[in-house]
């Protein structure tokens, strides 16, 4: 006798989509229509707003489930942006959208969504930002969609999904000193490729993951987007995959052996990953510490530890962007910002800053940037002839001090 649908073991993605679509069980490749629990947008809420008005419905489906957080261009860097900000502000007020985080109230959308308790495990979360996958670290089926599709969600409160198959990634072993979640996920992206998880769900687990902080788990879920993942989960207490759930494949990683060195994503794609020692001598003009990937307290802490009592190299600028107002204030209280500034860092207001190439740290032609952000595409942070190397916060800080790509252990040993 076969298993009845009720006893079919399911992955995290399958369980959440089954619940949200009112089914007992779902299987990969089925199309389901799922109720959306949370719908997040940033400045592109202006595009959503326009599409929504075109549809012609007067009221959003549920104002309490919509969150809008300005982060890409704050404070407004141009009149054009100020105009879109204003339009969204007025729309939010008119629609009764109370979860609206204006300039100075929030920070980077993913950080704010998580730290303000909007996300709970088992939710279906959609955001008009590709790194919405971050919230899989809180146990949500969380994924990015486009603005017009979001207008549909604002109208109907639901969205169709193809149930993804799941790649399981088990990580054991001990991280070496200075090696972090960023190095692990860059290593994995290097192995699987920029489309290695396209349309798939990813589940991370294993002892090395279970020892990680919440902030570090968010790094994994966030960057899984860069291998195409639809959603990415790390373990949560409240729910897990069923024992016996079916995986498309399982990848095993030993954190100590496989990720023995800091990992660097070289220009111009996130899967062009090399261990630090293989990159060679590289002069660095700008070092960026921030973003929805690595702008949290633990990232600022490690950077402060590396630069404490040292000076940023004269050819290098160190740009630091706390991920949110809350992170900024905490880092201030803990003295990390003081340490970073004493070393010569500039602190930007919480937001995306130069990550998306708009303002607050744009690169000139020929310049090299080592960045804790998540994309190194051509022209991402400025000139199409600039070069972005993605690395961990510790490597960013060490490189700022050395003026070239550097291992934090080297900087520490130099006693400068």
């Amino acid at each position: 006798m076969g298993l009845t649908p009720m006893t079919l073991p399911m992955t995290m993605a399958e369980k959440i989509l089954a619940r949200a679509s009112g089914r007992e069980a779902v299987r990969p490749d089925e199309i389901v229509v799922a109720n959306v629990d949370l719908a997040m947008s940033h400045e592109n809420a202006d595009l959503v707003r326009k599409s929504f008005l075109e549809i012609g419905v007067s009221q959003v489906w549920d104002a309490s489930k919509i969150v809008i957080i300005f982060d890409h261009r704050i404070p407004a860097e141009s009149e054009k942006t100020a105009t879109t900000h204003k339009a969204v502000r007025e729309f939010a007020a008119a629609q009764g959208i109370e979860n609206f985080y204006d300039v100075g109230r929030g920070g980077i959308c993913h950080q704010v969504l998580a730290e303000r308790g909007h996300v709970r495990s088992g939710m279906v979360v959609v955001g008009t930002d590709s790194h919405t996958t971050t919230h899989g670290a809180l146990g949500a089926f969380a994924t990015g969609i486009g603005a017009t599709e979001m207008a549909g969600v604002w109208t109907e409160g639901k969205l169709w999904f193809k149930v993804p198959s799941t790649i399981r990634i088990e990580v054991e072993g001990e991280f070496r000193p200075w090696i972090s979640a960023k190095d692990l996920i860059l290593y994995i992206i290097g192995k699987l490729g920029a489309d290695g998880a396209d349309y798939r769900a990813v589940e991370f687990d294993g002892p090395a993951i279970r020892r990680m902080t919440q902030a570090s788990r968010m790094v994994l879920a966030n960057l899984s987007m860069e291998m195409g993942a639809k959603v990415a989960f790390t373990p949560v207490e409240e729910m897990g995959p069923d024992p016996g759930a079916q995986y498309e494949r399982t990848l095993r990683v030993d954190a100590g052996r496989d990720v023995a060195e800091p990992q660097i994503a070289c220009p111009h794609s996130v899967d062009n990953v090399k261990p630090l020692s293989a990159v060679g001598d590289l002069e660095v003009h700008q070092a960026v510490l921030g973003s929805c990937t690595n702008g949290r307290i633990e990232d600022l802490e490690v950077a402060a530890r590396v630069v404490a009592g040292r000076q940023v190299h004269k050819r290098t600028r160190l740009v630091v962007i706390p991920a949110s107002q809350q992170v900024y204030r905490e880092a201030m209280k803990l003295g990390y910002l003081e340490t970073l500034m004493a070393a010569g860092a500039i602190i930007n207001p919480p937001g995306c800053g130069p990550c998306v190439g708009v303002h607050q740290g744009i690169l000139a032609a020929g310049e090299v940037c080592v960045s804790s952000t998540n994309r190194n595409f051509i022209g991402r942070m400025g000139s199409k002839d600039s070069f972005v190397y993605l690395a961990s916060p510790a490597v960013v800080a060490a490189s700022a001090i050395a003026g070239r790509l550097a291992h934090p252990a080297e900087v520490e040993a130099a006693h400068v």
Partner: protein
Amino acid sequence: MSDVKLVLRGRVRAVLGENIDTDLIYPGRFLNVTDREKTAEHLFELAYPEIRAGLQAGEFIVAGKNFGCGSSREQAAAALKFAGAGAVVAGSFARIFYRNAINLGLPAVVSAEAHAGCEVGDELEIGLTQGVIRNLTKGTELRAAALDPRAVELLEAGGLIPYLKKKYAA
């Protein structure tokens, strides 16, 4: 009702490689352009401005796998559509780009054979529901994935907005 035909005919404007990301298609610095038609002015602006400059209405962009990877920015699909592209044909698409394209009424056709089987200037006939691309210049037939019925429904409606408009505002 249909403003998208299910058999498309046109020339190949460009043949691009793999992992053409959304920053290449539509740079982040122009994201505060929220008039869909105006996004066309910045299509491929940093990397391949010559593609936009020479694009004729109905021409095709052909690429390798993972077209549209990266950001969720809808402007990438909008810029292609409003610059006049008739369709994008790629080995595979990143999922958000694919959904954006269909939602805006821009056909996105998956074909593993098109990248090697097409050159700039070739004339193609694409059967969206048949899963076949005829390269009329070369006299060859290339396999493609037939669009699923949900995508066809949206394309025939002219995109998600007109589709929802009909459903809710009638």
